Every structure is written in C-alpha cells, then in structure tokens.
C-alpha cells in the first residue's frame, strides 16, 4: 500500500517534469504556439496537494500546474493535444495551454486573469456545503496573484462561511520579473489568513512530504466542516516566467541554490533511505514515462486541427 503510494508519487513527479520538459522543447521547435509557462522545480506542490483527491474534489490550477491535470487523471494525450491547439485537446482548440479544464475530473479551467479562479473555488465549496457533500475545492495561485482584489474578497468570504476550500499559494518569490519585496511588505503570504479568521500554514514546496502533510491535514479539516486554510508553499521556478523569458533579473546563485533542493531529487533520497532500489526505479519510471510522453506527442501531432467554423461553437449551452 505505502509502496504503491511511493511509486505513484514518484511517477507523477517524474511524469510532470518530463511532460513539461518536452513541452519546452516543442515550444522551442515552434510546434507549440502561444505562451508556455513551465512549472519545473515546483512539481511537488501540485502533486502533493492533488494526490489522493476524490474525483469530485474541485481544483483550480494555474499556468504552472501541469501536474495537477496529470494527477487528477487527465489523459496526457489530450493534454498535449490541448497545448497543440488540436481538436482532441481539452478545449478543442479554443484556448491554449492551461486555459482549459475537465469538469468531469473536477478540474476547472482558468482564465489568464490571475486570482480570478479564487471566487469560483469559493462558489464550488459553497455548493459542497449546501449539498452536504464531503468534497473540497482547491485554488492554486502564485504569490503574485495574491496581490489582486479577488484574493481578498474570496478569503474573506471563505472565512465567514467556513467553506471547505483550500488556498494554495505557490510562492516562487517572483511574479514575472518582480521580486517578492516589490510585491508585498511581508515575509509570508500565509499570515494574511489571520485577517480572515482562519489558519495559514507555511511549508517547503520542494518537499513533497511537507506539502502532503500540510495539505492533507487542511483537506481533512475542510471535509469535516472545519473551514478553509491558506497554505503557502515556498518554491522556485527553474525556467523564466515563460519560455520566451530569459530571467536575467534573478541572481544566478539563487537558481543553483534552489536546484540543490530539487523536489524530485529530494524524493529520490527519501526513496533511497527507505530502501528502494532507486536506480532501477528511476530507469523503469523514465522508460515508462518516455513512452507516455512520446505517445502523447504523437497523438497531438497527428490529431486534426478544428475546422475554422468551429470557432462559432461551444459559446452557448442553449444557442439561438
């Protein structure tokens, strides 16, 4: 049982990274158009938070949260097709990258407007409460997005109604080029939770087990009617803001330092300590993943584009 969990977690961490690395490469080759945002370095957060969620649990991932889609069970083929703008993608080519959801798996597609899914997550949680369903809503967002009004309006409301919602702040210390100290005058976003009458928690976003401990405790409380939690995961993105961006605005040492805290290597050390044959596990997992990602890319490449006139479809449930 625990072995299965360890393997699954490792699989998802590695799958997320390989998938994203491939996406970066494909973007460089001009095969993926539009903005591409890599979450490389931050994988432990979404994997840790989403692992073990129920299908109905409602998550709102953002631009770096590829792993959330994977852990929640979206077929990598469809996900890759989404990035290619193909008809077989989640949005049928309507939008790109992660502006798409899969509501059957409880994944809500974001708009670009940062923090704007937070009110939506609160609304989902409200539904769970009204219907007495034991599910939770989880909104992910960067520390940058925490500056927007929607953050405040939502946390305040969640606090009043003790909604089953978890706010997961992925604090990677930069919003595009803007360092944290130009974004806020405090160390921890998490302390803001007090102003809304609930608990905030800080953990290392690069330590899968820390994320899981913190998140699962919060999820448990939420499921039992004990209200929301604001979780802040400290982490770092290895790449630039988008694949177009050369992050010259960050000191080089910072990256090196954070790479030495890599979430996957850290998890491998844990596996080793637990007595697994990590070399073998790694080789096997990588082989398996390569196949999955290769297949996904092939599927995406071979999939048809939507036809032009489909641009007029899917606007209304009751069209006119």
């Amino acid at each position, binding site marked *: 049982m625990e072995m299965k969990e360890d393997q699954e977690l490792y699989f998802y961490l590695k799958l997320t990274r390989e998938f994203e690395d491939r996406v970066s490469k494909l973007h460089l080759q001009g095969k993926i158009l539009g903005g591409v945002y890599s979450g490389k370095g931050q994988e432990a957060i979404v994997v840790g938070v989403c692992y073990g969620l129920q299908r109905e649990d*409602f998550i709102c991932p953002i631009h770096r949260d590829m792993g959330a889609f994977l852990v929640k069970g979206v077929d990598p083929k469809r996900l890759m097709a989404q990035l290619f703008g193909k008809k077989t*993608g*989640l*949005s*049928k*080519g*309507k*939008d790109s990258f992660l*502006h*798409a*959801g*899969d*509501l*059957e798996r409880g994944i*809500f*597609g974001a*708009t*670009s*407007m940062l923090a*704007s*899914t*937070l*009110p*939506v*997550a*609160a*609304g*989902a*949680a*409200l*539904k769970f*409460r*009204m219907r007495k369903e034991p599910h939770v*809503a989880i909104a992910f967002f960067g520390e940058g997005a925490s500056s927007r*009004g*929607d953050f405040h*309006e*939502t946390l*305040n*409301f969640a606090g*009043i109604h003790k909604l089953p919602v978890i706010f997961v702040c992925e604090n990677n210390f930069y919003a595009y080029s803007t360092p944290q100290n130009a974004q806020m005058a405090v160390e921890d976003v998490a302390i803001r939770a007090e102003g809304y009458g609930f608990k905030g928690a800080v953990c290392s976003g690069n330590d899968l087990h820390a994320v899981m401990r913190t998140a699962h405790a919060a999820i448990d409380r939420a499921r039992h009617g004990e209200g929301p939690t604001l979780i802040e995961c400290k982490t770092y993105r290895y790449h630039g803001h988008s694949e177009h961006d050369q992050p010259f605005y960050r000191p080089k040492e910072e990256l090196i330092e954070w790479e030495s805290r890599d979430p996957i290597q850290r998890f491998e050390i844990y596996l080793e300590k637990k007595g697994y044959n990590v070399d073998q596990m790694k080789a096997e997992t990588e082989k398996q993943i390569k196949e999955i990602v290769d297949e996904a890319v092939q599927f995406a490449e071979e999939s048809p584009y939507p036809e032009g006139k489909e641009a007029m*479809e*899917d*606007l*209304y*449930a*009751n069209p*006119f």
Partner: protein
Amino acid sequence: MPTTYIKAIRDAMFEEMKRDENVFILGEDVGILGGAFKATDGFLKEFGPERVIDTPIAESLIVGAAIGAAVLGMRPIAEIQFADFISCAYDQIINMAATLRYRHGGGAQVPMVIRGPSGAGVHGGLFHSQNPESYFLSVPGLKMVAPATAYDAKGLLKAAIRDDDPVLFFEHKYLYRRIQEELPEEDYIVPLGKAAVRREGSDMTFITYSSMLYPSLTAAERLEKEDGLRVEVIDLRSLRPLDWETLFGSVRKTNKVVIIHEDRRTGGIGGEIAARLAEECFDSLDGPIVRVASEDTHYAFSPPLEEFILPNVDKILAKARALAAY
C-alpha cells in the same frame, strides 16, 4: 390583484426557488433586509440562510462564487444592489463567465443570472442610474435581458433562471413600483430572444426596450392622433439574443425606423441595431434610421440636467416627425 414589476421579479425568483432546489440567491442585503428594493422580501424566512446569502460588499466574489456553484449544477441568482456596481465584477463576467463554456470546449455550463436595478429618472445621479447594457454589447457567451412589463419581468426572469447560460438581467428601477398588471396564476415563461410587437403599424417602426417602451407608446399614440401616422412599436425584451427577424419584418413593412433607448446614444445598442438593419434592409429604408437616446454624458443628478439628458415623449415626437417628413 395587479402585480408590480418588482413583485413580478420577486415572484419569479420565489417560484423558481420553490420549484428547483438548485436555485439560490446571493448578494448584498438580500437576506435580513429582503433586498434594497425588496426583491427578496420574505426569502430568508422561507428558504433559510443557506439559499439566501447575505454577502460582504464584494461584487467580484459574488459573481465568481455564483459561477463556481453554477458549473457544479446549481442555478445561482447573483443580485447586484445597483446595476452600476457591476463594474466591480466586470472581469468575472466578461472573462470568467462568458468564456467558460467555450474554453472548456463545450464541456461546462454556467446556468446563472446576474440581476440588478438599472436606469435613470429617479434622481440617482452618476452611480445609481446607469444602463450598463452597453458595457457588454460586444461580449459573446452572455445573454442579456431588459424587460419593460411586469408580465415579461416575471416570464423572462424564469426563462433566464432555467437557461443554461449566464444571463444579465437588467431591471429598470423606475418601473419597479410604477407599473403593475394582472398576471396569470399559472407558471409561464417568456422565451429569451423574442421581441414583442406592442402596437402594430405600417408607417414607421419604433424599436425600444425597458422603460423607454412607455414614452414610445405615448409618442406613437400621439402620432396617430395628431399626425395620422400608424407607428409599430417593438419591445426588444432580450438584447442578446436579439430578435432580428421581427425587426427585419417590421422595417420591410414600414420603411422608417426610430430606435429609442435610455442608454447613451454613442455606444448604445441602437447603433448596432441601426447598422445591421441598414446593412440588411437597405433598399427598404425610406429615410435614415434615427436614434433617441440619453445624451453622451454622465447621468447627472440635478433635475434640469437629468431632464436634459434623458429621452422623453417630446424628443421622440420631434425625431419621428422629422423622419415622417423625410
């Protein structure tokens, strides 16, 4: 007993909440107070605080939370205390709600209504008088309704609540207690997207909606009596979808069109209607399509200013007579 426009709105919500437990309402002061205009009077007692939610002052949250509940199958009604404040929820409406189904490739729906009192004529000043429909004219994915009668207010609101798309429902506060009608006992809806011909005519078409129906009808009557002109008056009721077929038919019959609305002239829906009618019915037109609308300024407070700004019977008559003489 006749039902006022505001009571018709109340009854529509009340009956729908009885009918379908997925319907709920959230907004500022909708609970204890029963709404700033009493649209939810008695709801808290009947349906309890889980379905009648007094929110903090946070319009973006109100709309966003409604969206979240809607995608999970609820049918929320988000009340904006004055429609002017919809500006504070603009992003949630035009980007979150309007694109939701589209960006999910059709795999989502957003059955929700955003409603609130709009319109001028009650000394509301700049921020309690706006007609926000023009802010949303170019946004696909939304529907938009603006009833003029109590019957329609009730029937359209029910249709909006039962519709699976996000509907903006702009009630005209001037009408709230000024008009009343006998309404059917039984459940009915007025389908979205169908205009009503309020008066038949063959010499000229008035296209209008919401509160401007009344001065339009008065002007039409006077034109008949004083000028012998038979004016057809069309009440749009829905602004999106818009009943183009009815408009085309009328224009082809009367060949002259006046569009009357309280929203501002520049950027109001009248421009879009005039443009499209002229594009599709060019040969049927015996004169320019003219517009009577609020002046291109803010809805000023002082009575002479408001009077100057808003359309009225005399302004309609002047334009209609000039057109008739064309």
